């Protein structure tokens, strides 16, 4: 097993914070009670879940009873979108973006097959949404709009506040997938009028297998899982107690670390980006660099292919991911890069570096040292490289 990797793939998943692991362990080892039980042995766990709900809500300036816990970000997305569909059975139009995560994109494609008219909001070359398209297509027949708060591949942040305000004016339910935004930028739900919001534990230093869904007070909601009375009947199934306690702790830590994320993590990201662009010709950054998550950079290296870059990096235990098709089993490069009109020759050779508070200067220096030779080695093999 590899333990000492240089992990720059934090938009894929994150290290579980040591404090989070400590917090959850007693609830795996000792306090295994069922929070629904009448006895105190179970009841003490219910108290901890209540605490976790408060911690989670605090990161979003929301009320604790506006959050339910789910099994992952995808479940939160599905629950929100399918509930809206059920709420408005007569509305046959739904809207999302062309650059959404598969958790939302593929659900919309699925609903399209079921007869829904779907609008996919296009983006420009910087990955910014076409707001005119959004306004034109937002109608009273729209059952739900689902727009990610920030894009997972480029880190581009969308103007969710303005978008949600416009939906509100027309009485359209608005959901946002905040899986990437949570903990990295301010997400104040007293200020941003979204109706529903999804988060995922493992993207903010909690373990995998836990998510949460914000459902604003008085928003109609139909449960996705039906059964017991847990989560006020909004999500049946015995609580994943240790993981709920973990996501609560992770949200608390994220709140404390937000400033570090926006200063220190951003500084390292900027250093990495600036140096790679300087040292490696024919490379460029994708996305809206003015409005971007502090931890993410998507860099295209022309004339070479992403999977080959990643495997070369793997030799030095540097972990990142690519917008390349060859890593996914599909042959088309990432739908996000294609929607932005990134030419094929560059889209194929795109690498996403995503940092976290656990990265340090030495790691970034090491990556800056190794990347130029990796890129030039692959370019020397490329028939398109005329360097």
């Amino acid at each position, binding site marked *: 097993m590899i333990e000492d990797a240089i992990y720059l793939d934090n938009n894929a998943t994150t290290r579980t914070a040591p404090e989070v692991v400590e917090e959850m362990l007693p609830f795996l080892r000792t306090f295994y009670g069922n929070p629904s039980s009448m006895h105190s042995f179970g009841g003490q766990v219910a108290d901890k879940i209540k605490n976790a709900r408060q911690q989670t809500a605090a990161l979003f300036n929301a009320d604790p009873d506006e959050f339910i816990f789910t099994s992952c970000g995808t479940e939160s997305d599905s629950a929100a979108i399918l509930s809206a569909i059920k709420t408005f059975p007569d509305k046959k139009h739904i809207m999302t973006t062309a650059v959404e995560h598969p958790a939302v994109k593929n659900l919309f494609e699925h609903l399209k097959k079921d007869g829904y008219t779907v609008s996919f909001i296009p983006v420009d070359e910087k990955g910014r949404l076409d707001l005119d*398209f959004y306004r034109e297509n937002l109608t009273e027949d729209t059952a739900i709009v689902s727009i990610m708060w920030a894009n997972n591949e480029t880190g581009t942040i969308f103007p969710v506040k303005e978008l949600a305000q416009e939906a509100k004016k027309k009485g359209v339910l608005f959901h946002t997938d905040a899986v990437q935004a949570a903990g990295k930028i301010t997400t104040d739900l007293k200020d941003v009028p979204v109706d529903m919001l999804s988060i995922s534990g493992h993207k903010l230093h909690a373990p995998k297998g836990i998510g949460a869904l914000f459902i604003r007070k008085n928003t109609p909601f139909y449960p996705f899982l039906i059964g017991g009375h847990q989560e006020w009947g909004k999500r049946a199934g015995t609580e994943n107690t240790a993981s709920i306690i973990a996501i609560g702790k992770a949200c608390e830590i994220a709140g404390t670390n937000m400033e570090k994320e926006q200063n220190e993590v951003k500084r390292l990201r900027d250093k990495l980006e600036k140096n790679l662009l300087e040292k490696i010709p024919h490379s460029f950054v994708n996305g809206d660099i003015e409005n971007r998550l502090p931890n993410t950079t998507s860099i295209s290296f022309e004339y070479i*292919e992403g*999977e080959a870059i990643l495997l070369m990096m793997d030799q030095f235990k540097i972990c990142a991911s690519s917008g390349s098709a060859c890593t996914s089993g599909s*042959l088309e490069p990432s739908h996000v890069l294609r929607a932005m009109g990134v030419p094929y*020759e560059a889209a194929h050779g795109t690498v996403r570096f995503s940092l976290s508070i656990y990265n340090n200067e030495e790691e970034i220096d090491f990556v800056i040292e190794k990347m130029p030779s990796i890129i030039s080695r692959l370019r020397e*093999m490329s*028939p*398109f490289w005329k360097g």
Partner: protein
Amino acid sequence: MWEYTDKVREHFINPRNVGEIQTPSGTGDVGSITCGDALKLTLDIDSNNIIKDAKFKTFGCASAIASSSALTEMIIGKSVEEAEKITNDDIVDFLGGLPKEKIHCSVMGQEALQKAIADFKGIEIVEKEGNIVCHCFDITEDEIRHAVAEHSLGSIDDVTGFLKAGGGCGQCHDEIQEIIDEVRGDSSKQKKSSSKLTNLQKIKKIEQALEDDIKPALKKDGGNIELVDVDGNKVVVRLQGACATCVKSKETLKNHVEAKLRQKVAHDLVVEESLL
């Protein structure tokens, strides 16, 4: 993470014979940057028809680079006649196997070799002819038919892994399935998956394509489009807004609207502008 054999990894990390022979006896160029992989193979063949040297340049993933490297090792020292017999399966065997989705990398190697030998012999390689099924990767019906029959491919995924056909937009999946069923003699399925559309289905699909794929682009330039009528394979539309007065409207109709509808709905559609 792909499950590559140690041999694939080794050939990727330490590829043999990278480069280009300055005055080659034969050159084989296959693939393109759009497709995601490409290979340029150059050969040095002596007067006894022995391949003295082979070099490659490859754009692509680890298995594309490893397949190319393997190919050069396999052919150096062989006679042209021996080399001609090398198939993609031989490349896969040499590497100790490739993931199913990566078989096309070895196919690329075989194609480059055949092209380079043809170039050496002075045989002109005729450009592809016939009905193109997969427009994303430019793969013809004959190529798919041949691959299905020769290599017992049983599913669309198999065909994509082998030829890349169907790996892009996915529009040709029905057609590929039909070819598979036909070649494998599964006629009961053939009827079910027939792509013949009823008029109503056709109109619905055209409307959907206009909404999803065509209008957004036109609207960006301040234009719009309206469906007037569908008569057999003739689609009558009316351009509106900025498009109505645009000098390039004819081009837009043919290059953008018609191409998109052919891709999305049926390949024999003709788009005309309403004169009313």
